[in-house]
């Protein structure tokens, strides 16, 4: 069966409080990462590269920048009149001024979209894990295993958290036999990636029944209960490539620094699995006479005349002469004036550090400079 018979649904309403200022005005899915991307780009590109033609993105709060980024879906060739990218913001009707109470609520509100879509299968995803997968093998395994639901999981330590997350026991046939939710110390190394593959009619039935029982969260209230139920076959499918969970400032920072490592970079960005994003049409980065840049990624539109080491420069960043930057993530259009010293900092978009400024954070707890701030 072809992947065009699978639709993707991405729920973007994850809790984001550990990301502090970074998610004050944007969803996690819209977080800028790796110099020119947003978190959601990896998932949408992975779906498209796998052959998925219909992707619905459920918006929750804070979705302006996400909507603006995804636009018409053109960058992902998802702009057709048949299938394509569907932006699903919360329903505000004459009676209901509201926000979804959780993923199940959101799916229930969008059951019309689910019903109208012509695909038979759904890949239901969350948006806070960055990975670049091709889902075709997962689909084939799912069909072969005759499981009701197949869940993507990873043994990567990047996903393991104390007191947070879902962990499975998977038997030799790939069937999930036990589940732990938010354990103090996870007993199983298989961390749930919150990507579920199942028949659309089964999903719609689960959503209906879940809503009737007053449940809100499809992961915890439906799937995780089901794993314990007899009679429902839940299979696990292991994802063996790199993956990162964006759930705190520290994990966000570490991810960006890890991309500087060739293994991680080449795993996430390869010719076979291109990652698409909104294009800015900036000119190439320009190195001036005094530039001294090492172990750093630099996006187009940057103008660098200072010293930069082990950092990530997003599009349109300016680094003045004599500046010394180390272990920093500097988002789009930020300006670092002459003779500034920065270490272990995250600068949100359009931040300005005036001439001679100095900010040195601890590597375990980087300093965050909010969007549009001038220091």
């Amino acid at each position, binding site marked *: 069966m072809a992947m065009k018979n699978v639709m993707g649904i991405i729920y973007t309403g994850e809790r984001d409080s550990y990301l502090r200022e970074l998610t004050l005005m944007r969803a996690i899915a819209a977080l800028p990462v*790796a*110099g*020119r991307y947003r978190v959601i780009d990896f998932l949408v590109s992975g779906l498209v590269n796998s052959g998925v033609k219909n992707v619905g993105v459920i918006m929750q709060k804070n979705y302006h920048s996400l909507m603006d980024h995804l636009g018409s879906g*053109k960058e992902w060739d998802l702009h057709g009149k048949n299938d394509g990218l569907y932006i699903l913001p919360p329903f505000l009707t004459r009676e209901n001024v509201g926000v979804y109470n959780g993923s199940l609520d959101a799916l229930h509100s969008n059951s019309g979209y689910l019903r109208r879509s012509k695909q038979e299968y759904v890949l239901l995803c969350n948006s806070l894990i960055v990975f670049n997968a091709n889902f075709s093998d997962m689909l084939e395994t799912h069909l072969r295993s005759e499981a009701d639901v197949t869940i993507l999981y990873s043994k990567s330590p990047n996903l393991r958290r104390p007191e947070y997350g879902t962990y499975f026991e998977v038997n030799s046939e790939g069937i999930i036999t036990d589940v732990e939710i938010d354990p103090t110390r996870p007993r199983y190394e298989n961390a749930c990636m919150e990507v579920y593959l199942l028949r659309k009619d089964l999903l719609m039935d689960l959503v209906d029944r879940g809503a009737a029982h007053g449940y809100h969260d499809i992961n915890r209230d439906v799937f995780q209960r089901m794993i314990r139920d007899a009679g429902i076959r839940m299979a696990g499918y292991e994802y063996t490539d790199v993956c990162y969970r964006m759930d705190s400032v520290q994990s966000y920072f570490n991810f960006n620094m890890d*991309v*500087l490592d060739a293994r991680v*970079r080449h795993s*996430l*960005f390869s010719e076979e699995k*291109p*990652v*698409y*994003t909104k*294009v800015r*049409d*900036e*000119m*190439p*980065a*320009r*190195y*001036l*006479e005094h*530039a*001294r*840049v*090492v*172990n*750093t*990624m*630099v*996006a*187009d*539109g940057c103008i660098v005349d200072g010293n930069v080491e082990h950092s*990530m*420069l*997003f599009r349109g960043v300016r680094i003045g002469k004599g500046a010394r930057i180390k272990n920093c993530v500097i988002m789009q259009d930020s300006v670092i004036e002459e003779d500034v010293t920065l270490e272990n900092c995250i600068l949100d978009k359009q931040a300005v550090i005036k001439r001679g400024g100095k900010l040195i954070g601890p590597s375990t707890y980087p300093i965050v400079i909010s969007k549009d701030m001038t220091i």
Partner: protein
Amino acid sequence: MLKKKQCVAMLLAGGQGSRLGILTATMAKPAIPYGGKYRIIDFPLSNCTNSGIDVVGALTQYQPLELNAYIGSGSPWDLDLAHGGVYVLPPYVKGKHGEWYSGTANAIYQNVAFIEQFNPDYVLILSGDHIYKMDYNEMLAYHIERGADVTIAVREVPWEEASRFGIMNTNAENVIEEFEEKPKNPKNNKASMGVYIFTWDKLKAYLTEDAADPNSSNDFGKNIIPNMLRDQQKLFAFDFNGYWKDVGTIESLWEANMDLLNMPMPIDLYDKRWRIYGRNPGVAPHYIAPGGVAHSCLITEGCEVYGRVEHSVLFAGVTVMEGACVEDSVIMPNAVVERGAQVRRAIVAEGAVIGAGAQVGEATGNIAVIGQNVKLAAGAVVAAGEQREH
């Protein structure tokens, strides 16, 4: 079926560019990479979209494949429209026979039916081999205001070079009184930029007359403009003072790239209100490794620099390995400079591989050129001015 448009642009993108040597062996001149992420044709196309001109007929003939794939639906330039957009127009068979475009005027003449679909008042004629930013809309306003039959964009060139250009001799009101193609003793230094706005009715009449003349070479500069002058039509010059570069030779292509390394840049490519659009390669930001050096250069996305890059332009996906050195050079998409190789004053075309320890070009002298997908053996030596096609 199609909507009326005030002005339609016709872009002569068929140039064989034989003075560009092996660079144009497998691609049309307008498809040549420039400035780290552009192709030459991005400039007239972006100028059109930024000027609000949203019908562009791109006349291709020679090696149109790459250009066809590059232009695609026109979306990078916002020219993927339901009512207009960019159309690739090769010569086609009419009735029982067909013919290739025999000259610039003939290319337009063969596409009269295309133009008529939009019922335009004016037609803008562009060529696909110059680097410049220009608001055609201002030129159109100038043309309309003066009730001109044709307006020709001109720029002042150094007097000593004037004899290499088509020179417009104008009166004080910028009325063109005489046109001299490459005059030995130029009376003026206003050179034609190859950008014309014609009132469509007039152009159609002259194209028809020209097509009926068996002795004509069917060229705008040689036939159409002289014929209009002969008949005392209203020809105006439109002064343009910005950066303008013909990239018709290896040397001028190299120079145009090096121009971007000057401070300040002679052409502002940062201007958000006049973006130059192009097809995006869709790769990650470039990476400078711990041992990498990048000075006075342009580097775009997808590059990996482990060696030294100085005063050079690197296109998408270029790799410069450890110990390699690139100086005063233009390295086109996906080329690889292997360990210890030295590249100086050179143009390395798309997909070429410079083997380990090879030496391409010299610190002085003419520009060396390595052709598309050429795999240069380890230790090979390519002298200044040499071109390697295999």
